[in-house]
């Protein structure tokens, strides 16, 4: 008979658990059959995590004198803290509580009620056997660094950085490109209100650039991340600009004088040119240019130096000898807002992009429309002068297609409607929108659809089969023909147009896997960063202290992106306000009397927490360095190392409990006489 007094609490989770596991039966069984192990109370309850459920536990602790608690409910990753706090409030050390995951590991993954109920019982038996060996512990408290790292300075990153900086805390804002602003800086108008993208974005860029609490690191990339929540150390590579930021005034004379024209496949989406020394656009933040060494004549041939010769500053701002710098910054939290890549439309040859001159991608069209773009906002054909008389806009290019990306890119419908409006407005052309389903959810979006309908845009429901210049019938010569089944009339149609715009999919960044790995978070099968909970925790990740915002988490429009940026900032601020962080007190320690000095454990620790004392011939573990993996515990041949929360006794007892009976409820070890 155990001396402990254990309470077992089985949660219904509404019907989430109760519909598969017979929870009442489990509770009754636990009380009747685990009495020897020390169970004195066993209850089932609709929602254990509710305040009433928690009070149930608290009351039992106080009234029945419980000294151990086992909660069979959801995954401990969700509610372990909830139930530990409940124990704490009732005066029981929180580490004397153990959770058993009968939702994620039983009711949600099994269908056979009888077998699921048996499994739930065995798992509870394991928890009960284990909890007996739990010891009262105190959490390890570490201070939280007040600084935050924001990676990616598109609108999501800018928003997050400003929110945190405005609250008075320091932010490192890291951007890979020479300027902040992201994709939004490339756009002309934003749906559904059609306000000018630059007009609403540039003030925020300037704020971010000038904020006393923001350290802006453009033309920089994160190299590595060490540490853990509250105490990360981030190594950042600040790429050489070859322009001295301390003296450069951003006057732009170097750009003017540079003799090399380079096709700008980045900011201008391949539709315009920049110089070899450049800033992506006039309102760039920071204002300092960058020298593109691949195309600069000096870097290629050792001659030219026009930029340096004409630079008016004293001393000269151009520094061909500048080197990359590695910075190490300590931060407490990290927000990843790394954005998206545009789907490469050349992967769908039947849409003709790259072969047919007047097939444009959505980003090309944004630049075409943009008053600061290569045509000063004229919507023209590739010849640079002709206005199109008919334009086809194709939705879902590379989205909702198992050959490429099976998800919906969310923004394409509204973007295509915006394009239809802009084409009409600028050229008066006939516009055809080819769509599969029109997705205009959210505020004022469907109203915008109505407006575009009113403007006389044609809507053809059908996924375009091909875009071709192979004329077949009168009226097709010299045109590009969009071939599609108009699914409403059930007939094939060939619609001759002058210009086609492809609403290409948003894709995860090409290096998203690598970035995720660097920050210790996960990517979904599609490549987007995975949030902690798809509904209730959309900006946190499974890794404490790392948050995500914007399109890096999945395709989304500007309002949602901004909301996520702010939400991530709020989460970080909440964390900073806690001042310190309670860490799981999971640490290894050596029982000196048992240590034989064999040193087998000595090279087990990647954190250098294990120290051998030559004088006493014993090993010691530094608890400040120990991370609690337990590898040394498993390695010690004399059982001299023990781990809090994962001691041999606890694990072995849990195994015993789990094996109390077989899958069908028969005694598992009946085959093996002791």
């Amino acid at each position, binding site marked *: 008979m155990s001396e402990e007094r254990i309470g077992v609490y089985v949660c219904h989770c509404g019907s989430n658990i109760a519909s598969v596991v017979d929870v009442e039966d489990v509770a009754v069984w636990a009380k009747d059959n685990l009495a020897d192990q020390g169970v004195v109370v066993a209850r089932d309850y609709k929602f254990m995590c509710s305040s009433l459920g928690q009070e149930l536990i608290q009351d039992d602790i106080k009234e029945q004198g419980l000294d151990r608690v086992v909660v069979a409910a959801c995954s401990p990753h969700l509610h372990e803290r909830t139930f530990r706090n409940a124990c704490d409030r009732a005066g029981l050390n929180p580490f004397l509580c153990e959770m058993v995951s009968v939702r994620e590991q039983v009711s949600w993954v099994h269908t056979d009620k009888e077998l699921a109920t048996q499994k739930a019982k065995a798992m509870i038996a394991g928890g009960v056997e284990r909890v007996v060996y739990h010891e009262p512990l105190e959490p390890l408290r570490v201070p939280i660094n007040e600084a935050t790292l924001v990676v990616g300075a598109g609108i999501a990153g800018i928003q997050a950085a400003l929110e945190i900086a405005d609250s008075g805390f320091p932010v490192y804002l890291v951007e890979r490109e020479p300027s902040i602003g992201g994709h939004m800086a490339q756009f002309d108008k934003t749906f559904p209100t059609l306000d000018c993208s630059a007009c609403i974005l540039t003030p925020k860029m300037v704020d971010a650039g000038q904020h006393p609490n923001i350290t802006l690191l453009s033309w920089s990339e994160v190299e590595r991340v060490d540490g853990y929540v509250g105490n990360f150390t981030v190594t950042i590579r600040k790429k050489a600009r070859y322009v001295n930021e301390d003296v450069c005034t951003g006057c732009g004379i170097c750009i003017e004088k540079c003799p090399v024209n380079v096709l700008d496949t980045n900011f201008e989406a391949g539709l315009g040119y920049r110089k070899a020394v450049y800033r992506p656009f006039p309102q760039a933040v920071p204002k300092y240019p960058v020298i593109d060494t691949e195309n600069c004549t000096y870097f290629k041939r050792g001659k030219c130096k026009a930029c340096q010769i004409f630079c008016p500053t004293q001393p000269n701002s151009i520094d061909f000898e500048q080197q990359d710098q590695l910075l190490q910054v300590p931060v407490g939290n990290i927000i990843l807002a790394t954005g998206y890549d545009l789907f490469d439309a050349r992967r769908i040859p039947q849409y003709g992009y790259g072969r047919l001159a007047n097939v444009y991608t959505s980003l090309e069209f944004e630049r075409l429309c943009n008053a600061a773009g290569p045509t000063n906002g004229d919507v023209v054909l590739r010849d640079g002068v002709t206005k199109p008389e008919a334009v086809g806009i194709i939705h879902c290019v590379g989205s909702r297609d198992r050959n490429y990306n099976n998800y919906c890119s969310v923004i394409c419908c509204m973007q295509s409607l915006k394009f239809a409006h802009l084409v009409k407005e600028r050229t008066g052309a006939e516009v055809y929108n080819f769509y599969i389903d029109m997705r205009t959810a959210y505020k004022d979006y469907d109203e915008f659809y109505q407006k575009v309908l009113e403007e006389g845009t044609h809507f053809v429901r059908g996924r375009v089969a091909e875009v071709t210049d192979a004329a*077949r019938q009168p009226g097709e010569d010299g045109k590009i023909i969009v071939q599609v089944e108009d699914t409403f009339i059930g007939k094939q149609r060939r619609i001759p147009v002058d210009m086609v715009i492809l609403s290409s999919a948003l894709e995860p960044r090409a290096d998203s896997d690598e970035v995720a790995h660097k920050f210790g978070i996960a990517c979904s099968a599609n490549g987007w960063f995975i949030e902690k909970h798809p509904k209730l925790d959309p900006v946190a990740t499974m890794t404490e202290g790392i948050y995500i915002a914007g399109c890096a988490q999945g395709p989304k429009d500007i309002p949602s992106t901004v909301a996520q940026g702010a939400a991530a900032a709020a989460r970080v601020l909440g964390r900073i306000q806690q001042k310190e962080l309670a860490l799981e007190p999971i640490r290894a320690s050596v029982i000196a009397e048992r240590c034989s000095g064999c040193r087998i454990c000595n090279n087990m620790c990647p954190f250098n927490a294990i120290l051998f004392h030559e004088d006493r011939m014993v090993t010691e573990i530094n608890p400040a360095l120990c991370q609690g993996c337990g590898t040394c515990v498993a390695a010690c041949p004399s059982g001299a190392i023990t781990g809090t929360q994962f001691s041999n006794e606890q694990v072995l007892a849990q195994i015993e409990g789990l094996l109390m009976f077989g899958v069908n409820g028969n005694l598992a070890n009946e085959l093996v006489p002791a």
Partner: protein
Amino acid sequence: MKYTYYPGCSLERNAGAYHSSTLAVAGPLGMEFQEVDDWNCCGATEFIAVDKMQAYALAARNLSLAEKQSNGNGATMVAPCSACFLNLSKCDAYLVKDAPLAEKVNRALAAGGLHYTPGSVRTRHLLEAMVTDVGFEGVAAQVKRPLYNLKVAPYYGCLIVRPGFLDKFDDEEYPTSLDKLMRTLGANVVDFPMKAHCCGGHMTQISEEVALGLIYRLLKNAADYGADVITTICPMCQLNLDAYQEHVNRYFGTHFKIPILYFTQLMGLAFDMDPLALGFGKEFIDAAPALAKIGVEPPPKPKRERPSKEALPMPMMPEEE
């Protein structure tokens, strides 16, 4: 290199020119063909429309014979006809994927004392084997009389690139291997957007009107881009475009006179082989006038048109030098 060879019914007669030119160019390229002994029809596009199990048994008999002939050394079977290539590779792919089907097909084969191990015979199209194994450089080494000035529209048709049961060797929408091969021969390859579209297949027999429409599209597109000849890799495509070209002219009031030649015929020509041995003369649309255009000197490199000042840059394509 040694291959098991599956000529298919068409090459025996109607596409005799393909057969003889294939065998003619194979020698210099170091390709050695051993015909599958007593092969039977692959089923074309018709058998599967009538009886599934028989269609698979029919194709599988060929695979089984090829497997036997290879003495278990993993046969590579080359088929010059796209329909044969598709049927045989598809049969193998589905037998690998669909174990119950394979079991049933083997029950049928057993009635003839045969057996087939799914996945043991790799069926390849002649064009693919040539460009992969011999390679463009290997072909170039044999070119003695380059096809300078001859404007060729490379026509792939459907089944060599779609649906692509084995590892895809060329793009299913815009293939380029035949383009490159023709360029290797010195020919002037014209852009041909319809290059992987349908030749009409069996529609000539079912609805001539529909078939003529499909053939017309191809001829018009080749003519629009100034092709002297269309080169093809499939007997069905050749037959439809060649034998029905006059019908198209009558039906649509057009005057197409585009010879339809097998790619192996053009290779043989560039290798300076005897045109008769390559089966020239069997075509309905006489190839002689077009072939007379072949020049001795390489044509001057066309000057790149300078884009106007206002013109916007074109997207960069991966293949551009």
